[in-house]
């Protein structure tokens, strides 16, 4: 009996890490990914992309989008950490999945990749709209570029675009420069101006426009120039990341392998930039890069170590926080010189850059302003590509106690003298007056 228990406990303790290796604040990289497809043919035609994900340790679960058994959560627990929608034409998801379920999935901190295409369904458009981008309303419109197209066999087809107008962020698209242009063929979208979180990662050239390539252009196209976004990302406030693109074929093996030559340019690349661009981008989307965490927020008076319940005005204090970046496998110290702390009450009274010790510990020391009230230590670190750090810690600041003022002030000595001499004088006067008849 005892032996049985030992085996049971041992097996639990061995299994536990495996049971728990899903997404968590401690290991932010996604593990389980649900891929919804229109057709299982995509699985093989886009196998390079999927394989690169599998090689990085992701557990891909391929399902048809209208499979009645698909479900994002069971018993209140999400079954997946990320969702890839490679199903541009799906009219209705199977199972319990709908737009609200997908939005809830994102709002509870999970990642999403959406690839639409020409004739994208209303469902996919709706999901994209919820994420802050609007696909061209004309269902058969494609992005056309008569100057920035990729040279190909079929002369006059300017819907295959070679674009190299990337976002300037090493965190999002990797530090290695993407030499070759990226091939794109599909529908364009624009960013909702109200949404401040959506970013254009790959935008079309100024000469591009969005229209139906088969019909004659009778009215001016609604989307033109670099307002057209080819690939966009969103980092939600809860740090869920979303990738939206209007081209499913971008991810295909064919585009990954084909060479590319941009029109008007003499350089011909053996291999398009798609593989590098999309793989690096997926690293960002799945939190293998640019994910920060702040721990051990501490503050105390300069000479003490314990955190007080409140400060007094003009106290000297020290504030420290540890910031780490997730490297994909472990937490590495995050080193930068632009993290600032605010001592904030309605507006920042003190704004100070934190100095770091190259091991992730950021600290600053300053003097509490001569103002009492309920202050906050605020660190609002929002840097392009990184998860946003928003730390605030409330701390009241009290005025002096009645016995914390100076007891005797040098400038007041004349008054002390006056008071005491009056008292002495009064005493002498009384004495003289009473006994000197």
């Amino acid at each position, binding site marked *: 009996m005892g032996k049985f228990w030992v085996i049971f406990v041992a097996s639990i303790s061995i299994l536990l890490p495996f049971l728990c290796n899903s997404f968590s604040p401690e290991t932010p990289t996604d593990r389980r990914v649900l891929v919804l497809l229109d057709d299982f043919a995509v699985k093989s035609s886009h196998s390079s992309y999927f394989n690169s994900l599998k090689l990085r340790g992701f557990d891909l679960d391929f399902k048809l989008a209208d499979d009645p058994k698909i479900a994002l959560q069971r018993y209140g627990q999400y079954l997946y950490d990320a969702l890839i929608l490679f199903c541009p034409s799906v009219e209705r998801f199977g199972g319990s999945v709908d737009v609200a379920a997908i939005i809830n999935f994102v709002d509870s901190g999970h990642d999403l990749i959406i690839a639409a295409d020409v004739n994208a369904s209303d469902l996919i458009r709706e999901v994209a709209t919820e994420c802050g981008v609007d696909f061209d309303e004309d269902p058969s419109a494609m992005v056309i570029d008569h100057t920035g197209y990729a040279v190909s066999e079929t002369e006059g087809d300017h819907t295959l675009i070679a674009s190299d107008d990337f976002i300037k962020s090493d965190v999002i698209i990797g530090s290695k420069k993407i030499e070759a242009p990226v091939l794109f063929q599909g529908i364009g979208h624009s960013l909702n101006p109200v949404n401040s979180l959506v970013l254009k990662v790959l935008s079309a050239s100024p000469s591009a426009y969005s229209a139906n390539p088969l019909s004659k252009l009778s009215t001016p196209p609604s989307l033109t120039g670099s307002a057209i976004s080819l690939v966009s990302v969103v980092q939600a*406030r809860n740090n869920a990341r979303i990738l939206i693109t209007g081209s499913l074929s971008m991810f295909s093996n064919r585009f990954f392998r084909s060479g590319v030559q941009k029109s008007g340019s003499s350089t011909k690349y053996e291999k398009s930039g798609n593989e590098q661009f999309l793989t690096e981008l997926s690293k960002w989307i799945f939190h293998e890069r640019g994910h920060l965490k702040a721990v051990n927020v501490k503050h105390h008076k300069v000479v003490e170590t314990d955190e007080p319940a*409140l400060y007094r005005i003009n106290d000297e204090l020290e504030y420290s926080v540890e910031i780490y970046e997730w490297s994909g496998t472990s937490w590495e110290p995050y080193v930068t010189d632009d993290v600032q702390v605010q001592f904030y009450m*309605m507006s920042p009274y003190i704004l100070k850059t934190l100095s770091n010790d190259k091991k992730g510990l950021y600290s600053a020391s300053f003097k509490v302003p001569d103002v*009492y009230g309920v202050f906050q230590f605020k660190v609002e670190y929002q840097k392009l590509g990184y998860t946003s750090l928003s730390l605030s810690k409330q701390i009241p600041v*009290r005025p002096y106690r*009645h016995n914390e003022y100076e007891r005797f002030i040098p400038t007041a000595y004349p008054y002390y003298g006056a008071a005491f001499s009056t008292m002495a004088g009064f005493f002498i006067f009384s004495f003289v007056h009473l006994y000197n008849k």
Partner: protein
Amino acid sequence: MSNSYTSDILKPFKLKTKQQELLIRVLILCLVYILAFITRLFSVLRYESMIHEFDPYFNYRTTLYVTQHGFYDFWNWFDYESWYPLGRIVGGTLYPGLMVTAALIYRLLHFLRFAVHIREVCVLTAPFFASNTTLVAYFFGKEIWDSGAGLVAAILIAVCPGYISRSVAGSYDNEGVAIFALLFTFYLFVKAVNTGSLAWGLASAFGYFYMVSAWGGYVFIINLIPLYVLVLLITGRYSMRLYVAYNCLYILGMLLAMQIRFVGFQHVQSGEHMAAMGVFFLMQVFYFLDWVKHMLSDTNLFQEFLRITVTCAVAVGGIALGVGMASGYISPWTGRFYSLLDPTYAKDHIPIIASVSEHQPTAWSSFMFDFHILLFLFPAGLYFCFKRLSDATIFIVMYGLTSMYFAGVMVRLILVATPAVCLISAIAVSATVKNLTVLLRSKTKVAQIGSTKGTSSAKASSKASLDQSQPFQKNGAMALLFGAFYLLSRYATHCTWVTSEAYSSPSIVLAARGAHGNRVIFDDYREAYFWLRQNTPLDAKVMSWWDYGYQITAMGNRTVIVDNNTWNNTHIATVGRAMSSYEDEAYEIIRSLDVDYVLVVFGGVTGYSSDDINKFLWMVRIGGGVFPVIKEPDYLVNGEYRIDKGAAPKMLNCLMYKLSYYRFGEMMTEYGKPPGYDRARGVEIGNKDIKLEHLEEAFTTSNWIVRIYKVKPPNNRW
């Protein structure tokens, strides 16, 4: 035989007339003392032993703090649960007299091994001090008239509704002890003036100190007494007694008052206290002149000297005042003080003062309600005072007249006038009754004397009675006595009725008559505050109109943005602006103040009329006073305040309207009326389809009186 034996036994106990009178007087005073206490217990009987209204909740919370943390922590208490994020230095912004008194009573009771809860002490503090006031009224009446007037004054003040309104059990407010302190100070001062004793002057200084520690109304004392002294000087009643009494009160009282942190240097710097200082210097000049007059025998020389001195003194005083004002050393009068002198001032300049219902000018009906027959006895008493003018009666006349003026300016100051009105009325009652009884008794006495002494003096006595008496004099006196008895009994009935019906409501628990005449209790406020206490995070910030701030911190134990200590007009205006803006604009303000919950009071379901919609125009005015983007005409239609279909569009979509009427359009409130019928205002609401974007309903009490909304975090993907 047995008869004489018992009388022998009782002989040592037999009292002389004087002693009998004393016994009766003490007995009456004891009964009055008890009466004053128990008549104030109606509220406990009707509801329960609880703290009433708004401000008392703050006082209760601070008292709790004193008893738990001791005096010095209370003195230095920085309260970060109110006025988020500014906080409030409680110790330096309140009058600690009430809390310290209650804490001392609590300590004393515990020392005597009575394990009472601090709440019970707080609830019963005001009745206890009201009882003490009756004693002071007796002595005061005795000082200015005679002991009979004192007794009547004690009885009148014991049940006078004007005083009861602020001192029922549970009304744990500064006024509860302050009226006692006020009257006590006046009594001691008058005693000091009458006797010229330094000891009484010292006592009055301490009385003044207690008053300063208890209530901001001490300003009334420090202005009335100089005014009184000035009147005595002008009428040529200057005396050494007055000099001693006033100087002792002013100097020692000032030094003591400056020990209260909230007053501090204001006592020598602010405009309200300048009159006292001016009169103080004037007294010195007077004394000096008196001395010079005494030294100089030549009148002409003295006249010349007088002219020069007075001119110089006035000039120096004027220059000092001018320089002080210009340099900012002497602060100008506060808005509240101005609004006393000029009742229209607050309405035009400071909406936050005008918005408080107890700062409104008094209606005639409330004089009648609070004073009843005293209103008619008051002039009669003045007549008697003028007939027997003395330093003391001049004082009570001045107190009566000035306080009556202030009572007319502000409803709440009826309270200050009440003791004066009671005292002066008592003089009228006492003098009248005394005259009548003397008339009655003298006649019988004369008859008796006539019968006993026989015929020898009968002629003389009958002559005397013929001389002084008119026909039916005795009957007339009897009738008048009965009339007085009838009026006084009506007064007693009225007072009891007012106390039980009008002034015993805690206003935090509402009572109404149901359809079948049964009593319905709405306990929604406490339900809501308890919900806050139980269901929200400890550091949650609640935004509401400032009326409910004290209650939320005391009962809900949550941080509030603004509360009834209206010290920061801008902060209140910010809340007023949020309430009167559209939801998305309000959301910006709400986020900037870190608000987690918004609380509104709504009476549309129950017909409770003092809710936030009825207060809303004040929010607009106060908000608009600081932020001109809020304009009152935007919320009115042709100058009319409406909430139905014809209401202004901004009104129908502002945050306060939305929060009050959210989902109200689905509700049937009254049979035979359309859904969304507002019973407090008697109209069908104009916007029934209210959608909230940034807030969500968190809790609504069972009668919808309090509605709490949770502020949603910003949209995740936008």
